[in-house]
């Protein structure tokens, strides 16, 4: 029994250390809100990446038209 309590407490302590939310946050972040964040961040990281690619491609064409065809 004591061993079980000890390991449960240890697991809780470790879990608390790694819990991905602030120990002092008084606000309930919401399970759904937490779950979607990693996905949302990934979506916008990709969106920004595509925008950068598009900008790079457009700048190539702009440069090309400035110098004219060789």
């Amino acid at each position: 029994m004591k061993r079980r309590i000890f390991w449960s407490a240890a697991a809780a302590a470790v879990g608390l250390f790694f819990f991905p939310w602030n120990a002092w946050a008084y606000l309930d972040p919401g399970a759904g809100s937490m779950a979607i964040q990693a996905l949302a961040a990934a979506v916008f990281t990709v969106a920004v990446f595509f925008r950068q690619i598009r900008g790079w491609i457009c700048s190539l064409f702009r440069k090309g038209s400035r110098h004219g065809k060789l």
Partner: protein
Amino acid sequence: MVSSEVTPQCLSFRDPAGGAVRIGDAFYRRITAAGREDWRRFNDSGLAGELVADGLLLPFGEAVKQPSGDWLAPVETLEFVSYSHEWAFGQFRDAAVLTLELLLRALERGMTLKDASSCNVQRHRGRTVFVDHGSFTVYREGEVWAGYRQFVSHFLGPLLLMARGDRRHQLQLRNFPDGLPLDYVARALPRRNLFSLQALVHIYGHAWFQKRLQDTTDLRPPEIRPLPRKRFQTLLLSLREFLAGLKSPAESGEWSDYYDHTSYSEASFLDKQRIVRELCRELAPRRVVDLGANTGVFSRIAAEESEVVIAADVDFPAVDRLYGQLRGSVDGARIYPLQQDLCCPSPGFGVLNRERLPFLERARADLALGLALVHHLAIGSNWPLPLVGALFAELAPAAVVEFVPKSDIQVRRLLRTRPDIFPEYGRAGLLAAFGRYYRRVKAFPIAGSDREIFLFDGRIQ
């Protein structure tokens, strides 16, 4: 007494790490033992100093230890507190962008915000400032954004509804003190927003996730993937860029061309301005409330002679336009534009109906202006004239009121589609009605017009 438990203004009392406290006329930030570490870090990291210097955070003083063990730090007093359901669109947008900006700056110093409530932001001396000093907390790598749900329900959701649905959705915030529920926003947004990436993720996707994970008998904390700081910053940057570019609906309000269709000549309008300016100069009020401020012409005149002018109007586009003009201007710093329907001014609500105070309490001033207003209340909205007097007496010990007679085109327009059932509406009726509340009156006819301006003072207590 129970109501003394709830501090006035919507300042944080839910956080055990501290909250806002009022002692006499001064305001303080209280820091309990639970909040001490965060407070130290907030100051020592230089974040607090940087934010105050850049005008983004309400200035505050050194925290002093109290006999109870808590610390109290004095904070600058806000001249006027307003809530998000009253804000001009631009003010609302600025508040959202500020919250994101502060999050980004905090992250650079290893801190973050505990929440993302619209109560954390106020207009103060012409700037949009953050007022919840206790919201800053230490950030740990991988930590999820605890304020995300609140940011969407307090800021993103309402702003999207106001910009892409109906501008008046903002008023629903009176019914939802913790922001609009996500499923409500998802349902109310026009369907074409499914093609907007931001709406798709933050509203529709978010609402779906929320619904899926809410009903559970499982008591174990959910397994959540950590959110790396870089990704978090990208998310915040994309949100900030999106919100900074969100435009309010381009409508032309029924009032915004008001000054083009009046019975005034240019000369009469200038005379009216002269009278109001001289009265403000003579009375020298510190605080003025301008009811029916519309384009803010007279709010600006009042601001020349006073410290604080609360400019209230029922028309959303007029309020939005006024904020847009004041934004960033030095002489606009004293003016606080607000949307208010005087027939239904903001009530007290929230916990014990005291968490947010009624407009009629917050807007109390030294002088109340009611220019081109009375006929809209008395005839347009069927107020008996004594009630109009009562409204002014509720707000200020002195009132500058314009009387527009029935011969004027504006009143004739109000009576166009209805019988004239207002025999008591007239100069004598107005003087009798206000005479119940104010002892003295002076009359100032406007040159070249049938209209008159009255100064009422000596309020009867």
